[in-house]
């Protein structure tokens, strides 16, 4: 599996993590180019369908990241997000996707470095895990 470059879709909340990713940029903190960010207004806005769509499309990992529990622009978005992620994990299990393919993080505006670190960690982890089994199956079917 040498040279495998995992593909990651990151759903980032507009107020915290998306701004953290911007801060990583303005601070020129480097991280692997494997990630593609989808901006959402709130982590609680991430519909499980979006995540399933990402895996269906061949993503090897998905990150859902937003504000810390106490920082939410909409007061309790992270709580709603956590509830959705719990359900999502069960669905992923049914689909045969390992737990580490979905990562849930809380990264505040000032944590550009944390964002970069999380992406690095995910890429390393997913390199070990290999391509998404769903992608492998879909490719076999095709």
């Amino acid at each position, binding site marked *: 599996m040498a040279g495998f470059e995992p*593909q990651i879709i990151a759903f980032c909340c507009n107020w915290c993590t998306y701004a953290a990713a911007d801060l990583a940029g303005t601070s020129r903190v480097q991280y692997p180019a494997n990630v593609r960010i989808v*901006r959402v207004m*709130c982590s609680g806005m991430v*519909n499980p369908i979006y995540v399933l769509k990402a895996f269906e499309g061949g993503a090897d990992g998905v990150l859902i990241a937003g504000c810390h529990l106490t920082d939410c622009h909409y007061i309790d*978005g992270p709580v709603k997000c956590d509830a959705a992620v719990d359900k999502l994990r069960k669905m992923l299990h049914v689909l045969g996707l390992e737990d580490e393919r979905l990562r849930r993080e809380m990264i505040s505006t000032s944590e550009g470095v944390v964002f970069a670190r999380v992406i690095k960690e995910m890429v390393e982890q997913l390199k070990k895990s290999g391509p998404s089994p769903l992608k492998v199956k879909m490719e076999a079917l095709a």
Partner: protein
Amino acid sequence: MEEIRIGVYICHCGLNIAGTVNVEDVAKYTATLPNVVVSRHYRYMCSDPGQDLIRSDIKHLALNRVVVASCSPRMHELTFRKTVESGGLNPYLYEHANIREQCSWVHDDRKLATNKAKDLVRAAVMRVHHHEPLVIREVPLNPNVLVIGGGIAGMQASLDIANGQKKVYLVEREPSIGGRMAQLDRTFPTLDCAECILTPKMSDVGHHPFIELLAYSEVEEVSGSIGDFKVKVRKKARYVDVDKCVGCGDCEEKCPRRTGSEYEMGLAERGMAYIPFPQAIPNVATIDRREERPCKAACKEACPIHMNVLGYASLIKEGRFEEAYEVIRRTNPLPAVCGRVCYAPCQEACNRGQFDEHIAIRELKRFAADQELKMGKGKAVPVERTKEEQVAIVGSGPAGLACAYDLVRQGYPVTVFESGPEAGGLLRWGIPEYRLPKKMLSNDISYIQDLGVEIKTNTPVKNLSEIFDQGYKAVFLGTGAGMSQRMGIPGENAPGVFHALDFLKQVNFGVEVDLGSKVAVIGGGNAAVDAARVARRLGVEDVTVVYRRGRDEMPAIPSEIEEMEHEGVKIEFLAAPVKVLSDNKGVTGIQCIRMEMGEPDASGRRRPVPVKGSEFTIEVDHVIMAIGQSVDKAVLPEGLAYTDWGTLSVDPVTLQTNIDGVFAGGDVVSGPADVIGAIATGKRAACSINAYLRGEELSIEEGGKVEKLSEEELARIKQRFASRKRVRAGKLEPEKRIDSFEEVEQTYSPDEAQEEAERCLASMVEGCFECGECKQVCEAKAIDFEQTDQIVELEVGSIIVATGYDQFDSSVIPQYGYKRYANVLTGLEFERLTCAAGPTEGKILLKDGRPPESVAIVHCVGSRDQNYHEYCSRVCCMYGLKYAHLIKELANAEVYEFYIDMRCFGEGYEEFYKRVSEEGVNFIRGKVAKITDEAVIDEEKGKLIVVSEDTLLGKMIRVPVDMVILCSALEARSDAENVARLFNLNRRADGFFLERHVKLDPVATPTDGIFIAGCCEAPRDIPDTVAQAEAAAAKVLSLISKGTVTLEAAISTVDEAICHGCGRCEEVCTFSAPKVISKDGNLVSSINEALCKGCGACAVVCPTGAITIRHFTPDEILAQVAALTEA
């Protein structure tokens, strides 16, 4: 459906994007995507020609969708929405791809970055296919403004807005506005006095018709959004009626508790009732009451004169004995007397008694009085006579003296007429020396005389009209109840039968009395006990007290009975004399009869009844009758009315007798009673006489209820405090007592007194413990302990947060010795030293009062230090220079500035640096390693040694100095996190609030309508703070000037055709935006657009997909995700 025609624009951003991403390649690729009509790349898309490019393409190529790939949408999404809008399209038919912050700046591999950019642009193109035009709504903006923080930033912003005649609510957490700047002495580089330039502003804020100041208040809750914020503010109880308070400061002066003044940085003390500084706005007192005291101060309520027990106990605890005496003196005319002979109902009531043992309150009072006498300070300052009307007091017992004491202190000329040779009444001739030494009594009385009360001894008053003829306008009768009652039994008049008071009087006046060897004392009151104990001291071997009831019923003070028994006196309980036996030589015995306790009578007290045939005889030489006293009408003037009990008849409220202007109190009214009760009526009569003479309505404040602790309260106390027994005062050995009249009870030593006072539960809380001293001294009657916090609800359209900074706690750098070495100060502490109104009146002094000969100023303490704060605090270099100049000017001491770099960037700053350099200040470039008092050579002895590297010399140096000033960092407020949450602000990693854009939007925040100013955003000096405040005010005024706000268009919408009205959306929404309603007979969800914030939670839980968020629809996001994973 209209054909989709997309224009795509890839920005180079100079080399910011183009340096890493092959923009040409991306543009070429994009052109191949579906419905892309044009794909261009350009150097700066945000520039005017860049935007013109888009507008021109919309026009000429009939574009109906636009994608720009450039920097973060947080930067320029709005710019390009406006561009497409001005080009004739709905602004929401636009999508932004972030290929700078999230691509070119974070990846250095050109190929990977280019591929990622292509993915991102493709996703944007696929997304924009689904965009729909959205309507932008405008709603009116509430022109009222809320400003948080009353420092220079908050004040300046408030004034700017209020001068524009817009209403400002200014909320300040502290009792006064002024903030940090009010603590500063002089300001760099002009050295003008901070207060002089600040206080006019404070005053303006206080009086401005458009500013409503909510000082001593905190914001509790903020809801709503720009244009329409609803804010709940807690107005903390000051326990002072601000409308009545005149700011005189009497309450603070008389407050018995002290704590470090926040304003003086702990270098001076303030009371629990206090005004933080003389120029405070609002200039009213605040009572620093932090928690309920654990006990209910029942002592105070139980005391007939409501003495401030907790006040003086607390002062004794702190070793402030003189002040304790003053507190006692304020209510009690006879401290040394009451400290000895009071029956102390306070102790009985003391709620510590429920826990372990009551506090020895009487002993503490006695200690304070004796200590004062011992120190020789118990002398009074004469009171100025402010009133004309002379008052005559007849009788110099406790009632008369108390009345005289209170009247003379109100400015009345007072004369006391005493029929006997010395003043004091029963206290002098009725109480034995071993209980109340005459010296102590005389001392208390001389204090009253020193105040200006004239006492005329050997002057009986028989005729009241003579008194009035002499010019007296009111009379108080306190002649007591000095006539011994008779039993009416056979033999009562035999020689050898004494009456207790006559007996005690003779002994007290030094008359020799021979009692033989066996004495019976009849009675159970204090006079009986006194007589028995005196008899023992006169050498009588066998003394028996005969009392008709049991021990529990004995009215004498229990401890006195106990001591009497220790001295060998026997008690015959339940026995009553029926006959005194005598022969021609005198008494031979006393015949008694046994009693038993009968049924309770009407008063509830069980009456003793004789047991038939139980007579017995006690052989004695003498009998002392102590069965009570009554009023001797013979000593009173004529014309007075009496009650059926033979006491003077008075009005129960005013204490006035049947004769106008004649008042009475003490035993002559109550019949024989206790000292403190007599004092209480004397004091009450003084109030009444004052009201009578002034022609005012009499108002006497009655005390509260004596309350016990509930079970839960007691349980809490047991949990919180350890049990500790009372400190017992020393007592004279019983063997030694009977040979002399030396005082039995000893006074506490200072250590004992402090130890005992520590047991007072009330004084165990921090802050005010509601002793009520302030209430007593406040002439405006402004103190109100019943006050509670008030919640004020405000409606405002915009908010400015200007909450300031905290000073870094330098003690966390242990090697600098702050708080360990007395002469290591922080900057703010030093500010107070040079301030003329400060604790040293502007003198730079060491802790021992000497002026320093050398001072070191250490820069960057906690700033520019990876271990604490990496940032520069921006003001330290300049105030360090200011200190150097002031030390040179005021103390002419040697100054050493230890700096890393000198940062003197503002107007006149560099010039000031040059000026101070020329004043002979030693500049040493190097970071201080440590400050120590460990001397290595003789010159260092007794000094603080600053150990540092001198980087210009390249070697370590040791500089011995007297004083060190640490230029401590400015840091974010410790509660900045809470404030951030309250106002939906973001914070940087250093804890300060984040502005919307560091360069281009420095006072706005990511939350619309909320602005920041001053040091809550970052450390800055006064000019910059003021400029920022003015900027924030301008921002707010421009919002108000426009008058409306544009609301978020990206909010929820319901497809009613598929909505079931299940209500899941209603359950999940934090803002109550969706409501299920009945429409045409169907249940459907309906969104209140004013409440919807567009968070999207409802759309996630909607089981049918009926709810979507505009601009974040599943179609849009799924298209984007699909496009991203396609590669």
